[in-house]
């Protein structure tokens, strides 16, 4: 059965500001409960919010990095709902005039380079945290430290076509936010949160596609959970469709809507002739299933109104230009440039870029010193990243500077030392913060550089391997490899292989062919 997944993500990102969005309290994870609070974020009577300029700046930067339009006028709205983690019983958010809209993000997805649309990016205050008694008997505890911390909401268009792509999109957002120091995006600490909307367009006989009811999956607290939950939910929806279509579900005759080049009709409740409302689901990590909660009969009514305590924000175009100029090169552009300028593959460019700007800069300096970008990329991806991951050290803490790594690559090329020898030297350099030649010296690696010395070794090897020589002379060119192996053993791998090759052939030519017994 032919089908397409339709996925949209709503991502919440906590901003790395020193203080909260509307008061001077610290914005910091892990403080003792209710210690970072004041009358403003506690919502005491009579106090007023004052916007944190820095938070607005970071939000605009994020929106610019997501290629959004930034209107020159934006305002704050109250979203009214009652909840004990929300002391004012309204959240200050943005409704009809968000600070940005209509952006996109280029993502390296398994399906190739894909552009995912962004509907809007807006700023709002976070709510507090409730801790419920495990048995459901005792009181619930309220911690208002997080109340009023700045939160960026990034709403994608339903352009994502696969769970893997959803993960790639999230990874790209995290990379962007970290690179621009907008957020640390730690899903475990809740500084990046994700709700996923998903449904499936299933081909039906008349050439149309039937759209299953949208399900919003909440409580996704890892990248893996997002991918797994979407996979599970997609198959659950397809199974449900197969079971119900033509019975409880049908599609209504009438105007199909076009979506991604497909004609799409939503499935209807056959009995009531009504569309099936959107449902909410939770993700159960242990069981690996989504649990669909009953869909609400009525949509929640937040009774939005402009917040009269805050003045609208008027954005200065010159300031906006300044913000734009501070963005620097963003990951997507970086990936393109690494491929174009250094002839790296998409994979290599992707791996390097994903590590952040510092590593890309490291690569570029290494490549320039080495004069060989490919080798620089190989060394960094295969060896340096492993060291970084295992040692949990940051690039800046490594004693191995990019120029030294470039030097190593050059040295290996000059000497013809093999990869294993190279790794030994690399390890020594890392350990001591020294240059390649010095490291090689300390390891007792002496390159046999003198050709006459090497020619002598070659001659000795020829003499010691008459059988192989005879085979070679009889046309078995492969036989030379055995002699070469003997030479390399003799030199302990410290001779340049191409020189050995040349000398060996020269010396073999000198051996008369009638020498066979």
């Amino acid at each position, binding site marked *: 059965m032919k089908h397409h997944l339709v996925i949209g993500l709503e991502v919440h990102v906590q901003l790395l500001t020193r203080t909260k969005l509307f008061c001077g309290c610290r914005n910091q994870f892990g403080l003792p409960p209710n210690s970072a609070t004041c009358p403003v974020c506690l919502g005491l009577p009579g106090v007023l919010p*004052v916007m944190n300029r820095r938070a607005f700046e970071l939000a605009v930067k994020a929106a610019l990095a997501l290629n959004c339009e930034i209107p020159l006028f934006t305002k704050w709205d109250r979203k009214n709902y009652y909840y004990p983690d929300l002391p004012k019983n309204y959240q200050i958010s943005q409704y009809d005039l968000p600070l940005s809209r209509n952006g996109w993000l280029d993502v390296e997805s398994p399906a190739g380079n894909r552009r995912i649309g962004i509907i809007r990016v807006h700023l709002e205050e976070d709510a507090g945290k409730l801790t419920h008694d495990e048995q459901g008997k005792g009181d619930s505890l309220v911690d208002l430290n997080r109340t009023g911390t700045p939160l960026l909401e990034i709403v994608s268009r339903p352009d994502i076509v696969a769970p893997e792509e959803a993960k790639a999109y999230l990874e790209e957002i995290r990379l962007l936010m970290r690179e621009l120091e907008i957020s640390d995006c730690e899903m475990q600490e809740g500084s990046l949160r994700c709700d996923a909307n998903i449904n499936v367009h299933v081909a039906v006989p008349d050439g149309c596609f039937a759209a299953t009811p949208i399900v919003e999956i909440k409580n996704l607290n890892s990248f893996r959970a997002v991918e797994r939950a979407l996979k599970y939910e997609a198959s659950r929806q397809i199974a449900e469709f197969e079971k119900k279509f033509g019975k409880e579900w049908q599609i209504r005759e009438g105007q199909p809507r076009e979506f991604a080049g497909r004609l799409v009709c939503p499935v209807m409740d056959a009995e009531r002739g009504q569309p099936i409302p959107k449902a909410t689901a939770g993700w159960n990590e242990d069981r690996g299933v989504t649990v669909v909660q009953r869909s609400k009969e009525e949509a929640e009514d937040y009774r939005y109104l402009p917040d009269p*305590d805050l003045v609208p924000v008027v954005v200065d175009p010159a300031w906006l230009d300044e913000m734009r100029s501070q963005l620097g090169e963003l990951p997507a552009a970086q990936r393109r440039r690494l491929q174009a300028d250094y002839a790296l593959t998409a994979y290599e460019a992707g791996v390097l870029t994903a590590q952040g700007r510092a590593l890309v800069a490291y690569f570029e300096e290494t490549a320039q010193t080495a004069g060989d970008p490919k080798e620089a990329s190989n060394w960094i991806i295969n060896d340096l990243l492993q060291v970084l991951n295992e040692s949990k050290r940051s690039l800046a803490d490594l004693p191995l500077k990019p120029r030294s790594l470039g030097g190593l690559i050059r040295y290996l090329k000059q000497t013809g030392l093999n990869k294993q020898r190279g790794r030994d030297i690399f390890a020594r350099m890392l350990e001591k913060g020294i240059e390649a030649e010095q490291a090689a010296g300390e390891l007792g690696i002496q390159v046999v550089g003198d050709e006459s010395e090497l020619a002598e070794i070659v001659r000795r090897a020829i003499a010691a391997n008459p059988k192989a020589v005879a085979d070679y002379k009889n046309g078995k060119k492969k036989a030379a490899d055995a002699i070469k192996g003997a030479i390399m053993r003799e030199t302990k791998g410290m001779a340049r292989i191409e020189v050995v090759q040349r000398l060996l052939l020269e010396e073999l030519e000198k051996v008369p062919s009638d020498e066979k017994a």
Partner: protein
Amino acid sequence: MAEQQFSDPRNPNSSSSDESLGEWPASVLAEHIRDGRLKAEEVAEYFLSKVRQRDASIRAFLRIDEEAVLRQARQIDLRRQQGEPIGPLAGLPVAVKDNICVGGEQTTCASRILEGFVPPYDAGVITRLKDAGAVLFGKTNMDEFAMGSSTENSAYFKTVNPWDRRCIPGGSSGGSAAAVASGQVPLALGTDTGGSIRQPASHCGVVGMKPTYGRVSRYGLVAFASSLDQIGPIARNVRDCALLLQVLAGHDERDSTSIDRPAEDFCDRLEEPFESLTIGVPREYFAEGLDAEVEQAIREAIAVFKDQGAQVKDLSLPHSPYGVAVYYLVATAEASSNLARYDGVHYGRRAEQYEDLIDMVCQSRGQGFGAEVKRRIMLGTYALSAGYRDAYYLKAMQVRRRIRDDFCRAFSECDVIVGPVAPTPAFLIGEKVDDPLAMYLSDIYTNPANLAGIPALSLPCGFTTAGLPIGLHLQAAPFAEETLLRVARAFERATTWHERRPSFPDATES
């Protein structure tokens, strides 16, 4: 008639601490305290004695801590003795409406739901009063959460009109206006969301002013309708009103809506005559529902201006008839959101018995709010609800803009707009409690100034035959408080209405 009399203010220089103190303008009291001719403690003692004599019948104060009052006054005297600067309001008692937070003191908004709530912070205006040397003089009664026009909606008790104790003092700043009118305090703070300073000032025969929106910090004012609320002064005369405004006005970085502009001196040019003055008289003001005696008093007031050489301009504010409708949508919509925080979860009153979280919130709010507050929360919730928002809230916001534009046009043709403050003088207690719409219509002349954000003032301009005061409403362009006060002072100079005092049994003994 029995309850009114002309009091002869004695010469302030002739005596220092007898009964006549109460007749002295606050500005004169302040001067004497600064000079050392009068002690702040004596002044405090005097007004506390008036509270003891009079408040049992007036009931203007919700709470007053005599010790705290005397402590502040002695502190002023001490500082003066030590040669420290003591500020423009030094030693002057100022009563504070109970929706303005005073750190460490109970602030209830005359509501059960905030019973026992003690804010840990001072409102912006309280900080300014303290810095100016004022003596904070108790918290005054009001309509619950400032919702009302009669102070009958207080959850605690009703305040009466000092001129006729069968009548309401007006509201919602009825406690502040009655306290000043009954000579219990020379100055008071009120708050005005739709007329809550001007209407009680009018009904009590005192001067009350709502400044331009943004002129005075709202930090620490418990919000009713944030885009309309302003704190303002209530006093016996225009100069005292200007003196208090001078201290209240100014930017506060804790209130984003407070305007950052250089301070003007409201007292300096108060007595200066006008080169030319044009007063605007909107024809919409003299319509059905306006009491004949009130209309008469306003017409006479206009004549006073004319006699002084003012031009009188007939003009139109075509959208002002929609003021009440717009006001009761905008104000209630904001209130429904502002009052959502009183849920019994974090502070204030929590119901004693409840089944679960939702029940706890419902019970706490159900028990904690009075009928009028509930009515307005419901109205506002309705106006913002999906399906009604466009027709009510958004439409109201559009008409609000038209109302503002009307004023803008009008002020290109005149300096101040003159009219009645309220369509009737103070009505009887209980007269309108069962008719909310009639109650709402008593704000018909005052609502538009809040919707437009312009400054407006009420000052005495006559009395009914029954002896109830009538207020004259003066409105000016945004930030034209100086003009407004000068015009008011010009009227005051030409009339004697402000000299009348309600009578008290204690005033006759001497």
